[in-house]
């Protein structure tokens, strides 16, 4: 068929379609059909290669899920440490944490903890234990981890701000020492992603430079002392959940990964020391093929960046180890049972994308933190997909699809455009390395925040106009909602927590705690790594809030700008 003729034919077919244009969430136009000519430059070895081989498009390991089951973790945390601990145990028994040699916990912390506030802080009033577990002291950490041998538990601590991550990691280390567990044997991660926190999570406590210093203190300390710890998890999930699209999610996350790498190199860490410890925590959303293609493009780009830009020699430095959270924002408060179906598709996308692990959202996520029943269904979702359906029985089942390969290329192309733009923003700035400068410029001039807010605004406009369908929200609405049981955290939690903190402070040697806090202040003002002095401080029973407050004296506080689009 000639080109003109074909264009006419396509237009004619499009006129009969149910929509006048087909686009992915990132605005990539979707054609009616994809053919070999859509992959003109395609080369198997160059673009895909075998799983386990550079550039890892098809996956990080030769056997993928045939050998290693997808790691499954359910994030949890609410109320008092013993309540969260009981839920950890319940989820563990339900097989909600799988794929690890031992147990695994993924702890979510409440608002006050994430802002470095003790439970008795006036600002914490009304939020203790509401959206996560409340941790103030090393004693809280001990109760939280009760019954989980630390050297046999993968502990994923979801902490955004580096100051809070440093203090809670110090509590974890101090607890291990108290239990005579060599800290060398600890495994886990502490998120610790300050760049993202400025843009999306917005619980940054200190200004940009001290936050980055604390972030790298954690990385340097763990690389030397806790070699299996993942000190930084690039948190693309927040970029997506705060409104960004699939391309922005990986492009901005890659910019962050590059910025941290540049900081590590500036500290004289070797790229092959630092690279293998970076992990990634991302999102899976509604559009199945775009999501799968996103992870394939992401692995390929990261491998290229680490190998070509930073001269990483080790394979492990080039491998994007990525954990996916199924979207909470894509879930709806209306007809919440429909969310079970959505989360199933999201989990499937994580499998087709070749992720190392998945955290399946509970169907009640749009309404509250999960009930036992909702958390159990989340555990069952991945079990059914992996063990019943056969989707995980071959490696990269979408590889070679004209459409998916074309989409993978297009996502990659658009993400490179963003990276160029960010790098250019850093030109002439004082921070030295280019991507680090570009990212800091992008935070300070609001570039990232605006790009994400604009995408989010357009998305919701499309939902309101009906251009984008959300079942139960703008189409197929229910006359009456089926009531569901919701999780509520009792205000009693707050009373108990404050009383416990008061007793903790009364029982301690006040002088010892005060001296430890002075030592923290001194090290904060120097260039020394802050981790050892933090471990001593939590052992001397200084609280999270007290430690963060002395650091505030040295570092100052971050005053974010609030803007909308």
């Amino acid at each position: 068929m000639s080109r003109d003729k074909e264009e006419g034919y396509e237009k004619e077919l499009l006129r009969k379609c149910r929509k006048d244009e087909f686009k992915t969430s990132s605005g990539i136009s979707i054609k009616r059909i994809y053919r070999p000519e859509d992959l003109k430059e395609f080369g198997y070895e160059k673009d895909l290669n075998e799983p386990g081989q550079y550039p890892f498009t098809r996956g990080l390991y030769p056997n993928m899920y045939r050998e290693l089951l997808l790691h499954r973790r359910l994030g949890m945390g609410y109320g008092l440490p013993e309540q969260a601990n009981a839920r950890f145990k319940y989820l563990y028994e339900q097989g909600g944490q799988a794929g690890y040699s031992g147990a695994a916990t993924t702890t979510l912390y409440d608002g006050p903890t994430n802002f470095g506030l003790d439970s008795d802080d006036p600002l914490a009033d009304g939020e203790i234990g509401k959206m996560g577990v409340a941790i103030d002291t090393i004693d809280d950490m001990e109760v939280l981890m009760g019954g989980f041998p630390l050297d046999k538990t993968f502990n994923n601590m979801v902490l955004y701000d580096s100051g809070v991550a440093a203090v809670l990691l110090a509590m974890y280390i101090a607890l291990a020492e108290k239990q005579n567990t060599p800290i060398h044997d600890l495994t886990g991660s502490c998120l610790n992603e300050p760049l993202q926190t400025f843009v999306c999570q917005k619980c940054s406590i200190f200004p940009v430079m001290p936050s980055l210093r604390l972030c790298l203190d954690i990385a340097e300390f763990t690389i030397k002392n806790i070699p299996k710890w993942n000190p930084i998890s690039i948190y693309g999930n927040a970029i997506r959940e705060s409104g960004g699209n699939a391309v922005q999610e990986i492009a901005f996350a890659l910019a962050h990964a590059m910025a941290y790498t540049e900081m590590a190199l500036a500290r004289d860490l070797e790229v092959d020391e630092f690279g293998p410890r970076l992990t990634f925590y991302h999102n899976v959303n509604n559009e199945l093929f775009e999501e799968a293609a996103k992870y394939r493009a992401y692995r390929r780009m990261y491998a290229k960046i680490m190998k070509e830009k930073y001269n990483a020699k080790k394979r492990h430095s080039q491998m994007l180890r990525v954990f996916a959270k199924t979207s909470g924002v894509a879930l709806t408060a209306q007809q919440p049972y429909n969310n079970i179906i959505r989360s199933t598709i999201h989990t499937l996308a994580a499998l087709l994308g070749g992720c190392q692990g998945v955290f399946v959202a509970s169907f009640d996520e749009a309404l509250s933190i999960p009930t036992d029943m909702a958390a159990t269904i989340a555990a069952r979702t991945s079990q059914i997909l992996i063990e019943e359906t056969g989707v995980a029985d071959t490696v990269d089942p979408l590889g070679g699809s004209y459409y998916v390969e074309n989409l993978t290329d297009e996502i990659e192309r658009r993400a490179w455009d963003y990276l160029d733009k960010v790098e250019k923003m850093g030109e002439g700035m004082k921070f030295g390395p280019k991507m680090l400068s570009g990212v800091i410029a992008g935070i300070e001039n609001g570039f990232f925040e605006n790009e994400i807010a604009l995408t989010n605004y357009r998305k919701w406009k499309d939902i309101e106009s009906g251009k984008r369908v959300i079942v139960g929200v703008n189409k197929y609405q229910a006359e009456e909602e089926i009531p569901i049981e919701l999780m509520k955290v009792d205000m009693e939690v707050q009373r108990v927590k404050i009383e416990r903190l008061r007793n903790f402070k009364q029982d301690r040697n006040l002088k010892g705690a005060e001296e430890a806090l002075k030592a923290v202040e001194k090290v904060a003002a120097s260039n020394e790594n802050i981790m050892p002095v933090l471990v001593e401080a939590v052992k001397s029973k200084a609280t999270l809030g007290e430690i963060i407050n002395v650091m505030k004296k040295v570092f100052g506080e971050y005053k974010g700008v609030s803007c909308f689009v």
Partner: protein
Amino acid sequence: MFRVDKKGETLMVQKRRIKILIANPGLDVHDAGARYVAKVLSDAGMEVIYLGIRQTAEGIVNAAIQEAVDIIGLSILSGRHSTIVPRISGLLREKNVHDIQIVVGGIIPKDDIDTLKKHGVKEIFLPGTSSEFVVDRIKSLMIN
């Protein structure tokens, strides 16, 4: 534009842009909804003061008075509505401010709606509310 005062008398109000303050009280960082609503209201011609996240009751009330807004819009998804809303309406009363109305948007359990209304909340926008409806309701609050 007309406005009815507490005693039921109809007053002439100078026709001007509605001024609304939007804030996310407390430590919840889920701000995408508030930012979207802020943009929608500003597109609808209102003057929007967006305070953003991490706001205290005192901070919100002080800013509202200083900026002489007509309406305070609170975005709450954390479950903190049961403590923060009474505190804000209490502070307004304490300061003898009676012409600033409160609206709330977010995740509010049905059982709590009446309590919030008792504390003076004029409108509660739950998930699924269209932006058109939000704009209309806010405009009509200014008339009634």
